[in-house]
């Protein structure tokens, strides 16, 4: 049985300009200890997918319209607040994009680090502090015993993200959701944070969902990837396969957009056009207006379908074997 099984998740936002279907019929599953990358550009619904799982979508305007997310027998989308608080921070933890604002500025690092322990485990303050200190050293904060008494504003961005990771992992969760945790950090620190999460994953044997818009990160870190576009899954595959046997024009376009893979001096590749307006109902493939392979038939509804076991695409023409990318 998979650790997490999401089926037909649909989340929308009811705004003044209409209903924005941010996540539209997304299904995926995750085994224990697995690493799944979710890739897509801004507004593709990758964060909303995970926020929906944690029930962190502000309601209203957001609404989880349907679907299930079974985590160890519990449907996260319908769990009671009591059930949720037992799972959040204990069995599923999350790290956020911006470490500068994710820590409470008025609390010492130590207080924030022991908070999940105090609410989730029967443990004394001293014991919790000891574990917090060990954890802080573990995530590579030098001089942890002293730094633990600092306040967030005395830490750099990279150090704060380490604190956030320590906070998320201190309860030894079974699943870690990382929402672009390296986006706000500079490149050298990004690599350190990636290595750190990898190391912690090995030690704790937890599953990781890594949300990113950086295919490079995915390549080095994730076992499987799903590419999202306009609130839907465009392609889902094992990482090697995604790069070797790309099966969706959008994935191919994303790969071409990586600057390092292009000849020096050439104009940078960009995907022409803009992502579609999600407040309008899109019948067929949402990538049609920007796709170089689009035909009239692409405007009819299309479902995600396996082309080889474990490799699914939502491109009709690839499914019909009409094009190879």
């Amino acid at each position, binding site marked *: 049985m998979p650790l997490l099984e999401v089926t037909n998740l649909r989340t929308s936002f009811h705004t003044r300009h209409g209903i924005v279907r941010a996540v539209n019929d997304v299904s995926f599953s995750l085994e224990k200890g697995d690493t799944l990358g979710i890739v897509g550009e801004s507004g593709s619904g990758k964060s909303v997918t995970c926020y929906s799982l*944690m029930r*962190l979508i502000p309601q209203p305007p957001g609404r989880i319209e349907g679907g299930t997310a079974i985590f160890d027998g519990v449907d996260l989308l319908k769990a009671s*607040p009591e059930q*949720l*608080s*037992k*799972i*959040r*921070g*204990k069995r599923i*933890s*999350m790290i*956020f*994009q*911006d470490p500068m*604002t*994710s*820590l*409470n*500025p*008025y*609390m*010492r690092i130590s207080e924030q680090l022991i*908070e*999940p322990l105090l*609410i*989730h485990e029967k443990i004394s303050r001293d014991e919790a502090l000891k574990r917090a200190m060990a954890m802080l050293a573990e995530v*590579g904060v*030098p*001089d942890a015993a*002293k*730094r633990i*008494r*600092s*306040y967030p*504003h*005395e830490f750099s961005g990279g150090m704060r993200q380490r604190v*956030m990771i320590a*906070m*998320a992992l201190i309860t030894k969760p079974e699943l870690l959701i990382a929402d672009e945790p390296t986006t706000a950090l500079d490149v050298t620190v990004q690599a350190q944070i990636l290595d750190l999460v990898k190391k912690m994953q090995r030690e704790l044997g937890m599953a990781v969902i890594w949300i990113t818009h950086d295919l490079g990160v995915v390549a080095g870190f994730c076992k499987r990837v799903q590419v999202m576009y306009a609130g839907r899954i465009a392609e889902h595959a094992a990482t090697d396969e995604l790069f070797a046997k790309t099966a969706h024009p959008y994935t191919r376009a994303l790969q071409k957009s990586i600057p390092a893979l292009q000849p020096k001096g050439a104009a940078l590749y960009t995907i022409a056009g803009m992502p579609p307006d999600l407040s309008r109902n899109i019948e067929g493939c949402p990538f049609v207006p920007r796709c170089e392979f689009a035909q009239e038939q692409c405007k009819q509804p299309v479902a995600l379908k396996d082309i080889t076991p474990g490799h699914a695409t939502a491109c009709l023409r690839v499914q019909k074997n009409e094009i190879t990318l």
Partner: protein
Amino acid sequence: MMSTEPPIITTPSAEIEPGHSLWQDAWHRLRQNKLAVAGGIFVALLALVCLLSIFIAPGTYAKTNLALGATAPSAAHWLGTDILGRDMLARILMGGCISLSVGLAATLVSVVIGVLYGAISGYVGGRLDVIMMRIVDIIYSLPFVIFVILILVVFGKHIVLLFMAIGAVSWLDMARIVRAQVMSLKKQEFVEAAVALGLRKRRIILRHMIPNVLGIVAIYGTLIVPSVMLLEAFLSFLGLGVQAPMSSWGTLINDGRKSIEEYSWLLIYPSLFFSLTLFSLNFLGDGLRDALDVRASKD
């Protein structure tokens, strides 16, 4: 992890300080504001002297000496005596006790009720927020003076009732301010992080919301004190507040007003104490605002 670090570098790593909280930083800034410090010291000293006067010379404020009558300030009575021959210094200090404690008590009430009420309303939001805020609106719309007069007439003129009447209305502003702060605060990522860690509403409000609004609360609290003292003086001036022979600055000023032409010191000295205290508290409040809210201050 850092095992490859060259050994030549001797890092003075042992000297990391335990860390300055934002409160400590604010305290440091406050101390550099001379006006605020002077104001704070003045109020503290005055409160101390007022309090001591009760223990050193209990009852002096009510001791009449009809033979003496009203006398101008002299060596025996530094600030003179009133028409009934009572020592003005003793009466002013007693009045200070009452005025300051009314200010303090009402502020305490407004802080405790207002902060909790506002934080809950703002954080929970939705229908509860609407109901809670309409209740505030309703109390707001009651004509305050008539409300207080009604309470005092129905339940009798007791000083505790005066405290309660003032306290009952002074938390409204605080609740609104805290609510607005909390509403903007709850959109911050650290609150999202706290929810993701499995914290319940109660704990988030108490541990994450309230400490973050305390800066604003402290500023507003110091500014409530003088306004409440003014209110008490106003009520006493109308004869609704403290009753003789007890004195408050409001009643003293009212008494002095009646005999301003013959015995001006009866008006001047209580007014002087009152205004100096109000000035000091306002300076302190301004200083606190500059110290706690760095973005709003001029430098």
